[in-house]
């Protein structure tokens, strides 16, 4: 259940990023590829997908990072199986286990930082949003 809700919550982020990229795609490239004898699948794989690559990575990051700290959705509808990292942190803090909670927070922040550094090129959203 938690998965569906998270997909529901974060789907728009990914959709917006991908939409911005698709909107700038020159569809004549597909026609040109087909004209030159590519099968439709091959045309998509060689023209559309490479240009979408950056947007896809960005969309993935835009969704992945907030979910690392997701707290509300699992707390509201996750039940006992749906405890995520964010709930753990919240529980530590409401239980006055400040050092433990801080350590968990720093861990989340570190993962985010690593992801941001690894994919810093795709985060230059100018390429996508223009």
């Amino acid at each position: 259940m938690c998965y569906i809700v998270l997909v529901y919550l974060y789907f728009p982020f990914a959709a917006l990023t991908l939409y911005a990229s698709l909107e700038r795609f020159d569809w004549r490239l597909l026609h040109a590829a087909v004209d030159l004898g590519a099968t439709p699948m091959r045309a998509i794989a060689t023209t559309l997908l490479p240009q979408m690559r950056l947007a896809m990575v960005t969309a993935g990051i835009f969704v992945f990072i907030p979910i690392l700290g997701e707290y509300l959705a699992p707390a509201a509808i996750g039940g006992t199986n749906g405890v995520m990292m964010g709930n753990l942190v919240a529980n530590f803090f409401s239980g006055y286990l400040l050092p433990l909670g801080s350590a968990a927070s720093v861990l989340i922040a570190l993962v985010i930082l690593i992801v941001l550094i690894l994919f810093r090129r795709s985060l230059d959203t100018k390429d996508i949003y223009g």
Partner: protein
Amino acid sequence: MADDLRAVNPRARLFQTILSVYGVGIYIFLFAPIAVLILLSFNSSSVVGFPMAGFTTDWYARLPHDTVILDALSRTLLVAFWVTVLSTLIGTMAAFPLVRANIKNRGGVRVFITLPIMMPGLLIGVAILVLASNVLHIQPSLKVAIIGQTVLATPFVILVVSSRLEALDRNFERAAADLGASPLQRLLYVVLPLVYPGIIAGALIAATLSLDEFVVTNFIIGADQTLPIYIYNQLKFGITPEVNALATMMLLGTLAVVGVTFGALRLVKVLATVAKKSKQVEEVEEAEEAIAHGLLVPRARDV
């Protein structure tokens, strides 16, 4: 375009059908929960669920009489007001040096300033909680909540305003300075009139963000409740139609804020063009009058 694709690939029609079904499915996925929420707020049974017992607007009628909700509403509006004012002010002021100052490693500075957008609200919330209560020894309160939400909203304002500012041609200001405008006059008469759609959009984002912000606020607001926190706390005791009605009203409220602002922006634009046109007409009439009185000899180019 669809037609020539069909010529290339005989299965194009099939794919189109599949994609249409998928698109409709996504819309249903996105809006079914909201539709159910709104529908059940009109259910006359106090048990939330289908089948509906009957149609009633009682739950809406009850809202204005619930003092807890009214308190939460006024608090939400108060917080939203201050967050909008503060973050718009801070964000706009921060956007100027970010775009124009000679900053070394501008990209890095920009990433750091906009980092709170990427950071999960949970981390910002607990960070502010620890800083306020354990280091500065300030009890969680409405003021801390305002500060926390401002931290959250300001980067959005900075992003929107600075992108607008980047598109602004600096030659306008140079021309104004050339004509003897003081820095203040340049700001008031040249820069702000050109940048204000960005500022308003930023303020709008800040307001809507603040109105339904839960995660950060929940940690730092203390005993007070804003509307999102009230709704969340109600969920623990089970969902009532009243909460449904309240959520529907919040949805409408947010949409109304956005709609009214965009409407106002459009109105300003229309009025501006009308004013410009009537001014031009006036000028033309004045010129014609002047010509008629022989004060101004029309040059060949003007005629």
